[in-house]
């Protein structure tokens, strides 16, 4: 299936063929179906009633009525409706400013809520899509019963259908909860946030204008990366490249330092004849087990200006002034802060790699070493010629996912430096990654449009890396053969 799609010339045809097939099926089923099937095109479940499968029919009918009621009645939350009105609202035209006040009664109109309009618009679109899928399935179900009848088979009963859900269609049963949950709490919100990148939803601008309303504004926010227009335009124009390049530098250093550090630690711990392996492992697992907001905040305070570490350095006479390791003050060194977060990140990340590679190290076929030993290879040589290649070969997928993970490494930066040292006048400081910048811009500043732009760029970067490497990885291409 997958390989066919990859062949170039057929791509377009491949894309359109399911759509063509879909309409062809619709036509075929209408022409070839029974009266019940034909009626199903209008009333859900009609075909099932026709075949005396009342329960199934009733479910379909209920779904139709439910969604139609939802569309027509437009239940509203905080004055923002769902349903067909939500679709009309999606354009954000015809907004109501609010602020009409009746001093006598205390009634106050609060105006349109643009973000809810967009959100509910998408929910409604999802409901419509679902409606048509049910519509199609309802026709299909009826048509299938027609066909069964034609060849003299009894149409499946509801019991049989349910049983199928535990067997041939077991995947539907198993995936439905995840699909519902992911649609509502992951897919829709993500689409919503992407949409905000194309609006003027920026609390500062809106405060300045004294309004609660915002509008669609096309790709203006993306242009701001180059032109620097808009309220956070200067910020995004001047800080985007520095933050982006630091994000990459960070991800490369953080990934490699933890990776090789972890392998070396694993080798040390698994050294033959070493006693107390368990104790050492436990020590390192501790840092994984303890919530990061605890351990990282501990490190932050430990390294702080008046923390024990600086006190120690000063007592030893190595420095006369406390050193701002983590760039918490504007005047602190940016380079030092960058180096420090990478070092502290090793403290966080090395135990992971150690745990992971320990298992792999033990699985290296012993005969490889035997052969090398017979050839008189030294320990170092064996490490570079056997151990390292083997481990790297097996853990390449991890290397990639940890690289992507580091690009999105929110906790380490946010808890350690808070992005500092700050650049006066900007949100994004010296150690801010795209994600922490995104957080500051959206959550602290309420500039949802700029935040969404940063988020989309972050996504594009991680997605590109992941797709390129994942597509080429053995795990993906040989998945089927592997089984």
């Amino acid at each position, binding site marked *: 299936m997958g390989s066919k799609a990859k062949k170039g010339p057929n791509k377009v045809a491949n894309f359109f063929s399911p759509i063509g097939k879909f309409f062809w099926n619709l036509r075929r089923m209408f022409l070839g179906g029974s009266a019940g099937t034909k009626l199903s095109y209008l009333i859900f479940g009609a075909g099932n009633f026709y075949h005396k499968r009342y329960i199934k029919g009733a479910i379909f009918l209920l779904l139709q009525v439910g969604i139609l009621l939802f569309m027509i009645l437009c239940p509203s939350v905080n004055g923002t409706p769902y349903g067909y009105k939500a679709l009309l609202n999606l354009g954000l035209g015809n907004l109501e400013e609010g602020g009409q006040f009746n001093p006598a009664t205390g009634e106050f109109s609060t105006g349109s809520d643009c973000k809810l309009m967009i959100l509910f618009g998408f929910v409604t679109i999802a409901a419509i899509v679902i409606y048509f899928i049910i519509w199609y399935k309802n026709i299909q179900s009826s048509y299938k019963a027609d066909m069964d009848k034609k060849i003299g088979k009894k149409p499946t009963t509801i019991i049989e259908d349910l049983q199928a859900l535990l067997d041939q269609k077991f995947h539907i049963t198993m995936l439905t909860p*995840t699909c519902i949950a992911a649609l509502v709490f992951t897919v829709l919100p993500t689409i919503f946030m992407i949409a905000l990148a194309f609006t003027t939803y920026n609390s500062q601008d809106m405060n300045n204008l004294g309004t609660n309303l915002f509008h669609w504004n096309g790709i203006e926010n993306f242009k701001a990366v180059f032109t620097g227009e808009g309220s956070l335009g200067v910020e995004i124009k001047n800080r985007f490249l520095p933050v982006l390049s630091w994000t990459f530098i960070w991800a490369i250093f953080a990934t490699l330092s933890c990776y090789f550090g972890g392998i070396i630690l694993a080798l040390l711990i698994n050294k033959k004849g070493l006693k107390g392996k368990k104790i050492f492992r436990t020590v390192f697992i501790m840092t994984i*087990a303890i*919530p990061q907001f605890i351990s990282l905040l501990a490190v932050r305070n430990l390294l702080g200006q008046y923390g024990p570490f600086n*006190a120690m350095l000063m007592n030893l006479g190595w420095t006369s002034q406390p050193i701002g390791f983590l760039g918490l003050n504007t005047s602190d060194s940016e380079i030092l802060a960058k180096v420090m977060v990478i070092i502290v990140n090793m403290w966080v990340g090395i135990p992971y790699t150690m745990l992971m590679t320990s298992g792999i190290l033990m699985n290296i076929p012993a005969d490889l070493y035997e052969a090398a030993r017979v050839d008189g290879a030294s320990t170092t040589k064996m490490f570079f010629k056997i151990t390292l290649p083997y481990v790297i070969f097996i853990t390449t997928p991890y290397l990639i996912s940890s690289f992507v993970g580091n690009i999105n490494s929110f906790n380490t930066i946010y808890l350690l430096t808070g992005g500092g040292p700050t650049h006066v006048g900007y949100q994004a400081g010296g150690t801010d990654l795209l994600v922490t910048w995104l957080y500051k811009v959206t959550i602290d500043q309420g500039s949802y449009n700029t935040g969404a732009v940063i988020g989309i760029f972050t*996504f594009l970067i991680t997605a590109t890396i992941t797709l390129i490497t994942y597509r080429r990885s053995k795990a993906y291409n040989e998945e089927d053969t592997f089984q």
Partner: protein
Amino acid sequence: MSNILQPKKVKSQSRNRRISLGVTYAILGVMSIIWLIPLIWIVLSAFRCEYQPDGTFIGTVTSNFFPRQFGLENFTKLFSGTYYGVDNAFLKWMLNTLIIAVIDCLISTFLVLSVAYCMSKLKFRLRKPFMNMAMIIGLFPGFMSMIAIYFLLKSIGLTGNPQHPEYSVIGLVLAYSAGAGLGFQIAKGFFDVIPNALVESAKLDGCTNFKIFRRIILPLAKPIIIYQALMSFTGPWMDFIFAKVIIGADNARFWTVSVGLYSMLFGTHPDTNLFTQFAAGCVIVAIPIVTLFMFLQKYYVEGVTAGAVKG
């Protein structure tokens, strides 16, 4: 000649080995200390009980690593303290977190297992597209969607509901566990290793897919079940951003413990003298989680390794 040389060589080899072992011990020892220092320091801070000469309690970070005086005052203050107008807030936060963690653990584990099983052992149309889709969605920064989730939950009354502030807890559980199913990759990697032959032969015996899942796969999947449960159980104890948005800044009664502890350090308080109490809270939170990790270490390692190899 070779007969004479032989023992000497063995001897020098063993000495070399001893030296290298010694060096290893030294390196590991130093590293262990480095790794433990921040943790030890937090524990020491939790038991620190220092006063100004006039009797004012010092709760801030101080430059001395070892406390000059030990005591339990931080713990008593923490447990009896009123934060954000909530009496005995810390106990309530602990209980909330426990409830959230347990429910999240059950739901998330179930979702992950079911998706992973489908992706690994069932053949159906749209399997690969689903996997790709899950991967793509997983690449968006999580808190981009936080605000939208808040408003969706609010529209069904599961947060920001003044009549039932406790519903926010349900909302948070939903927000935590809803996306869990999309993180099936590690569990799938585990299922992939279970031979297909087992499944095939069971099918020949007339087992339904459901039965295969329940009777064959689940018993074999114990390590990955424990791994997933551990991960989703510890999640709520560690998150300090999502929980505050979903439960609400005004809803301190129903915060999770991490939100509460985080606010102690970073909120604007009349009293910023809370570092040692924060440390005490950290110790209380860390104890159960670390214990769990220690007991389930084996499974954790297995999960991590599975994830690494399969990506």
